């Protein structure tokens, strides 16, 4: 690994393949040996990986027969003869597998997989020169089974085990339904999701879906793997069929509904949602999906209209507050806010009016008030804000009422930068005196504080507060005035 010197770099670049391979092989060795020394006890793990590498590389590059023999020959004769060697792990194969001359029904690559195993195994033990590797427990069994025949006759248990270890395996011999299911159950018992899915992929290819679905009904764990797999590879249609056959209609409906997220065009999306209305949702969800469709339908109308109005420059509101984003696909409450912002005071009949939205989507009083308040406060339409709370009784007196505590209202107004004059009106409406004072102090509503102390006849607090306001200010003078008022009967 001494590759730091710059003058050497040129050399590497010019003839890197040859030299590289050479060097590299050394590298592998030293590195492995280093690791081995460093962590003696994890050696088995390292070996497992490398062995795996060998196997896999052999089988993968081995898909076209020509390339297998080619690369095998190459590695056989010399590892360093050419830079075209694709896999650096090949070099360790000393004994090339003898390919069978008769071409049986079995794929060459699968045959090769089995034999290559022996090669890599040997090479490893040799390269390590460590006899202990032969005692490596599962390896004892392996060569034996590999010599049996080219047809693997591993039991379901052995097959699953091999799959877990990333070794060569074959699922081809699991022909009968019973065998297939035994294999699946074995995979489930091994708790390895990777293997469970692998077996399911095989079953998917080799069983009709009706049969597979039927068998999965009683195999919850395998079923969940299957569903997740189908979700991941995006086999929507099959998934829908599966849910249908399982009688999981709500899941099926949601699954199909989910697809609307993939549709960018709003008109297509709306049409899709319309089709969703007939899906077997739970009664509650059906209402929500209906709302979704209605909402988008209206948003499309509002958007088209407002866009046109905005660009024509007809309405002041759009000139003063240009729209930051389109209203399409926004939640109901955001749409309501938008409507309270741009379409306040429109008659109930129009789709874009707050009242219409409120009614269509069954928005609660509390929710309506909160949203409306936010929008009107943002526009600093304090008159509208006032009107929201004002109720007239039959005698014609007006009174302010709210479905939520006025301390909350104050909070919202303050967050919308309401001026003190507006704020204090609402602070005054807070019923709890203590809360009123703390809010007033927080937002510097001097009048409210002073009046409250006056009403509480709390002379001491008033004196304390006098110390907090600026000397000579109007508040100061007001406190002075009250304190010198002989009409008040102070409690302290």
């Amino acid at each position, binding site marked *: 690994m001494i590759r730091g010197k710059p003058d050497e770099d040129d050399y590497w670049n010019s003839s890197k393949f040859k030299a590289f391979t050479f060097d590299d092989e050394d590298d592998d060795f030293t590195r492995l040996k280093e690791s081995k020394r460093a962590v003696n006890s994890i050696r088995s793990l390292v070996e497992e990986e490398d062995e795996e590498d060998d196997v*896999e590389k052999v089988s993968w590059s081995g898909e076209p027969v020509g390339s297998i023999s080619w690369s095998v020959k190459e590695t056989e004769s010399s590892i360093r003869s050419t830079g075209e060697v694709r896999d650096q792990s090949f070099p360790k194969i000393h004994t090339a597998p003898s390919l069978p001359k008769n071409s049986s029904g079995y794929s060459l690559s699968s045959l090769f997989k089995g034999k290559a195993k022996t090669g890599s195994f040997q090479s490893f033990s040799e390269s390590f020169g460590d006899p202990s590797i032969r005692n490596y427990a599962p390896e004892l069994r392996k060569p034996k089974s590999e010599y049996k025949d080219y047809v693997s006759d591993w039991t379901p248990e052995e097959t699953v085990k091999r799959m877990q270890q990333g070794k060569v395996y074959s699922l081809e011999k699991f022909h009968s339904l019973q065998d297939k299911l035994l294999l699946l159950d074995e995979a489930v018992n091994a708790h390895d999701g990777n293997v469970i899915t692998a077996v399911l992929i095989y079953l998917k290819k080799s069983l009709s879906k009706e049969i597979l679905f039927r068998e999965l009904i009683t195999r919850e764990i395998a079923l969940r*793997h299957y569903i997740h797999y189908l979700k991941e590879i995006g086999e929507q249609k099959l998934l829908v069929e599966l849910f249908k056959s399982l009688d999981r209609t709500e899941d099926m409906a949601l699954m199909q509904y989910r697809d609307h997220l993939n549709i960018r065009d709003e008109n297509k999306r709306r049409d899709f949602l319309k089709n969703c209305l007939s899906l077997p949702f739970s009664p509650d969800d059906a209402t929500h999906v209906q709302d979704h469709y209605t909402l988008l339908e209206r948003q499309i109308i509002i958007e088209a209209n407002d866009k046109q109005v905005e660009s024509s420059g007809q309405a002041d509101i759009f000139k003063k507050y240009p729209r930051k984003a389109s209203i399409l696909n926004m*939640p109901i409450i955001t749409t309501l806010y938008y409507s309270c912002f741009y379409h306040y005071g429109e008659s109930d009949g129009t789709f874009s009016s707050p009242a219409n939205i409120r009614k269509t989507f069954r928005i609660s009083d509390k929710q309506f008030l909160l949203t409306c308040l936010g929008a009107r406060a943002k526009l600093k339409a304090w008159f509208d804000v006032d009107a929201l709370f004002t109720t007239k009784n039959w005698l014609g007196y007006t009174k302010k009422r709210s479905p939520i505590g006025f301390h909350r209202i104050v909070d919202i107004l303050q967050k919308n930068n309401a001026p003190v004059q507006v704020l204090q009106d609402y602070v005054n409406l807070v019923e709890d005196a203590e809360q009123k004072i703390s809010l007033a102090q927080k937002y510097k509503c001097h009048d409210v504080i002073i009046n409250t102390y006056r009403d509480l006849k709390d002379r001491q607090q008033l004196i304390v507060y006098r110390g907090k306001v600026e000397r000579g200010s109007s508040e100061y003078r007001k406190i002075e005035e009250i304190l010198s008022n002989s009409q008040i009967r102070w409690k302290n």
Partner: protein
Amino acid sequence: MAHSVRRDAPELPDFSLLKRLARDQLIYLLEQLPGRKDLFIEADLMSPLDRIANVTTLKQHDVDKLYKVEYKPIVSTSDQLCFLIRPRIKTVKWICDVVNADKAFGRFRRYKIIFSPQKFYACENLLEEQGIFGDVTTDEWSFYLLPLDDDIISLELPEFFRDNFLEGDQRWVRTAGSALHLLHSVYGPFSKVYGIGRCSKMAYESWREQVEEGEQRARQAEIGNVFLIDRDVDLVTPLCSQVVYEGLVDDIFRIKCGCVEFGPDVTSSDKSIKVMLNSQDKVFNEIRNEHFSQVFGFLSQKARNLQTAYDKRSGMDIKQMKTFVSEELKGLKQEHRLLSLHIGASESMMKKKTKQDFQELLKTEHSLLEGFEIRECISYIEEHINRQVSMVESMRLLCLLSLTENGLLPKDYRSLKAQFLQSYGIEHLLTFSNLKQLGLLVEQQPGETLTVMESRVGKLVNDKTAGKLTDAFSSLAKKSNFRALGRRLNLVPKSDEEYDLRVPRDMAYIFSGAYIPLSCKLIEQVLERDGWTGLEEVTRMLNGHEFAVTAGSNGSDARVKTDSQRIILVMFLGGCTFSEISALRFLGREKGLKFIVVTTAITNSARLLESMLDNHA
């Protein structure tokens, strides 16, 4: 503020070895594709990779250009492409597209995929289906464990939670087993393993099998005991607001792979800086486990000390000054830098939290944990939703309500769900379905008695059938029983008692004295009792799957009270929070133990809930 160590706690093993192993293997794998190559790295592998290697290392091994996987057509001109990815269908699909596009273009390149930490058959199958099996070589980079700190090791697999607990896919079970096997091989042999949860049980089995397959080596154990716990045993704890410094930093700024990015509001300059947060940072190390209310005081004291240290200069002669500059100044400057950083962070967090009425939020959470004034809590949550304040936060409160109350009343469920959908978008129907499936947010069932029946049936039949039964009744089986557990394990201290956060008396300090995390309490109890004896009722309420096993003959020194016996490896399957780690550190100090936390990922309420979202294509 720094706690005195009550008993001599043993030294922690050196985990840097794990990094070296991972780096060596990566280099080895890169060399399997000799020659210059461009490397495409999966976005969430970049930070872990950064922790163990750097660009120079990669360049030294013929990596030309580095790209992030972005699921777009590529621009590379290299003849060799190497992909370093997680075994995800989506990423493999993208690679298939890249390769097939090259083919269509008549362009010849070599491709190699390195899956980390392992490959899945489903991925290979996709390569085969897309007709590029063989054109692409694949490898595995067994980078299972990333040490984030002296006592934290992460598998960096945030998807573990969703895959395992929501989708019911056990693909990561063997990964967890292999990670454990690696630790066992290097730092074991373990002599005792405790655990609770279905996944823990399976991971244990997988690990055991792997040990059997490998060879045994007699060596001095560095880690004696192991505790495995499924995240879904305790879902309440990760959903609580974190108030311990490190947890709070994670909640607000999101610590990524042990590193946090502080924005201009923290650095009080115009740029952001990335800071490693670990025990190397001396200032951070002293405040990370402290309740936030204690941090300011500590930092200002520290600042004063620093001032004094600087002030020493005034009366110095030249020689003293020289020593000062050469010996102390550098350290002081470093400390100064760190101090101002953490003060900045604290200020920024303070501001953010006061803005959103943190106190009121915490009050609601504490009421939920206590089971007190639930109606008020519900209207607080409702208003939170109505005002369209943070969606995840609303969802968090709803889940906490459901978990602590054993589900919502049908009427509340319907109304809150409807309002949630109105405020945050109707497509969250899908999220609600997920939350229900996982048992995070459910409706109370009219037939509560069913659960009792089910647990009786569960006891009668053997384990295997019980597992199937549990799955069949999955929604019922996920009853949280939080109140009963809380009483049984004293998780919620009486609220009328004053709790001195300066001198914490138990693990509840991590939640301002309001709640002892269930996960950590279980660990404490089991270690104390050396097993589950006496906790039968608790485990029944947690749906069982508890185990405690002792190693056989080869763990002969198990009974010898060595240091390794006081080192406990706690593995969280599905993620753990910084608050839980703080709680375990506290427990360790109290009992003279050292905890090493191994987690599939560091989590918090936002990450956990975001993994439940389904509202994007």
